[in-house]
């Protein structure tokens, strides 16, 4: 067990030294994107300064270094999620959203036909909804939604009915709006019992808890660099080698081919089949550094730390605002992460966030790319505060102080 100190993490993150309107920044938007430690920023700078070159296609020194760095990132990521087949199962995309498009438009287009059901949930991010709608337009699949209960959990009471005709169950490990942590192991068993596969949107969960694709017994995992202390411009798509192997190409171009003639082409094998064009090389270097950094912290430490922050915050809203601030998400702290959506009575989320900004508090107002969930609860938007490994109780203090002002101003 590594010893964990959020203060030590803070010291590694340059943006936390910033002042906003002469106040220290209070960063509570990690569910949207995380801040980066120097280890990540510097790894990318050093890459550009010393060894930037295109990968795969050259024999000179810096090109082999760049290739080794890029492929090394694949290894690290494979290890981080315990991919059984190792680096050969890791595809780098530009973000989680592209990974979902790859899932829908390569695996989905090949394996799903009219009438087949893709089961998602009402709490999914648009990234796990819109690609399925697009696939529906071309193939006639059905996109079905697992309802969300009034206490913000997946309603699996009618799971047998829900699973009828389902070929793929695709759900978030953790909701980016509610903080709800879904029972992935259970859902995997459910899917497999019905002969379906399961895909997990790990965009939130992978950054905040240990993820073991073998232990979870899942078939696809998707996540994104910029939410796990890594850079923008890189996402991950994981599936087992035996599935990856059968997936047809997605984007076409250089790097993903074995041969191109004037009359056709032959796709390459392995992850590169899905990596058309010059890949995100510096971004892979940054992601590798982020993974190492997180492993250094210990993911169980990260989970415990953020859980404690969330539990503390949840207990304080009621006390402080006597019901004027409603939590949109589970009130109890079991199976719940550090994402807290708020509805402030009579004050629009945009206005709340605007007032909070004046206190240096960074929170996100809006639908959080989860409009079906918003509609489910009759909301247009929420104010969302979310924690990272560098967050402190002090951040909650400032949040509560600023919220108090917002309530007063529009009261």
């Amino acid at each position: 067990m590594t010893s964990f100190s959020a203060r030590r993490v803070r010291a590694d993150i340059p943006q936390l030294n910033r002042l906003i309107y002469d106040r220290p920044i209070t960063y509570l938007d990690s569910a949207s994107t995380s801040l980066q430690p120097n280890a990540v920023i510097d790894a990318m700078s050093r890459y550009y300064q010393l060894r930037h070159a295109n990968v795969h296609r050259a024999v000179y020194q810096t090109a082999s270094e760049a290739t080794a760095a890029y492929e090394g990132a694949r290894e690290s990521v494979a290890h981080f999620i315990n991919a059984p087949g190792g680096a050969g199962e890791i595809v780098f995309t530009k973000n989680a959203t592209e990974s979902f498009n790859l899932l829908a438009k390569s695996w989905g287009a090949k394996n799903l036909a009219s009438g087949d059901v893709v089961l998602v949930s009402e709490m999914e991010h648009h990234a796990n909804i819109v690609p399925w709608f697009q696939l529906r337009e071309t193939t006639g699949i059905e996109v079905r939604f697992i309802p969300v209960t009034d206490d913000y959990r997946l309603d699996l009471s009618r799971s047998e009915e829900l699973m009828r005709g389902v070929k793929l169950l695709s759900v978030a490990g953790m909701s980016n709006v509610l903080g709800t942590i879904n029972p992935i192991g259970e859902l995997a068993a459910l899917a497999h019992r019905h002969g379906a596969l399961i895909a997990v949107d790990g965009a939130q969960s992978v950054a905040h808890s240990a993820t073991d694709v073998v232990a979870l017994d899942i078939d696809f995992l998707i996540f994104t660099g910029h939410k796990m202390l890594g850079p923008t411009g890189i996402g991950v798509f994981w599936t087992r080698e035996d599935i990856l192997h059968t997936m047809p190409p997605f984007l076409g171009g250089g790097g993903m081919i074995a041969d191109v003639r004037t009359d056709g082409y032959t796709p390459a094998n392995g992850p590169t089949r899905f990596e058309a064009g010059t890949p995100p090389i510096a971004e892979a270097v940054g992601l590798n550094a982020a993974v190492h950094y997180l492993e250094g912290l210990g993911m169980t430490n990260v989970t415990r730390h953020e859980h404690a922050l969330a539990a503390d915050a949840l207990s304080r809203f009621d006390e402080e605002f006597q019901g004027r601030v409603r939590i949109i998400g589970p009130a109890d702290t079991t199976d719940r992460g550090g994402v807290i959506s708020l509805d402030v009575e009579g004050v629009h989320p945009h206005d709340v966030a605007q007032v909070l900004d004046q206190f240096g508090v960074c929170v996100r107002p809006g639908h959080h790319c989860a409009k079906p969930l918003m509609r489910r609860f009759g909301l247009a938007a929420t104010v969302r505060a979310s924690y990272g490994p560098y967050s402190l109780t002090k951040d909650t203090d400032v949040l509560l102080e600023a919220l108090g002002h917002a309530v007063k101003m529009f009261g």
Partner: protein
Amino acid sequence: MTNLDDLYREIILDHYRSPRNRGELEAPPAVRVEGFNPLCGDEIVVYLDVEEGVLANIKMTGTGCSISQSSASLMSAAVKGKPLDQVRATIATFKELMTVHESTLAHDGEPARVDLRALGELAALQGVVKFPVRIKCATLAWNTLVQGLDEAVA
């Protein structure tokens, strides 16, 4: 907090708390148009009655922040019952207020080209341009109105 007071003037908070021209019109005959701000989830539905070149009636429903709601309310008060050319002129002046400021923000000068008096109460929204991300809130109702007018005269 000076900054904030600039944005949230009393007139704005008043129109937010008591919006004018809330409600629906039967469509048809009225024109019904929807507007979204995809980035923040704000929605507005505008109903228009255009009769003989005059915007005879306007009603609105929807949800949004104080800026988008008060802008809609202020807009409805400014254009209701006005001839269409005058409505269009008001729209143009308001849009100029939003863009002039945006591009001259750095200079922090007065919006030379915009006749603030012509805007009446609408001028209260000028503080918005100091908050570029909120401009979309302020213009949502206006863009929806433009779309509605185009449909009404099509």
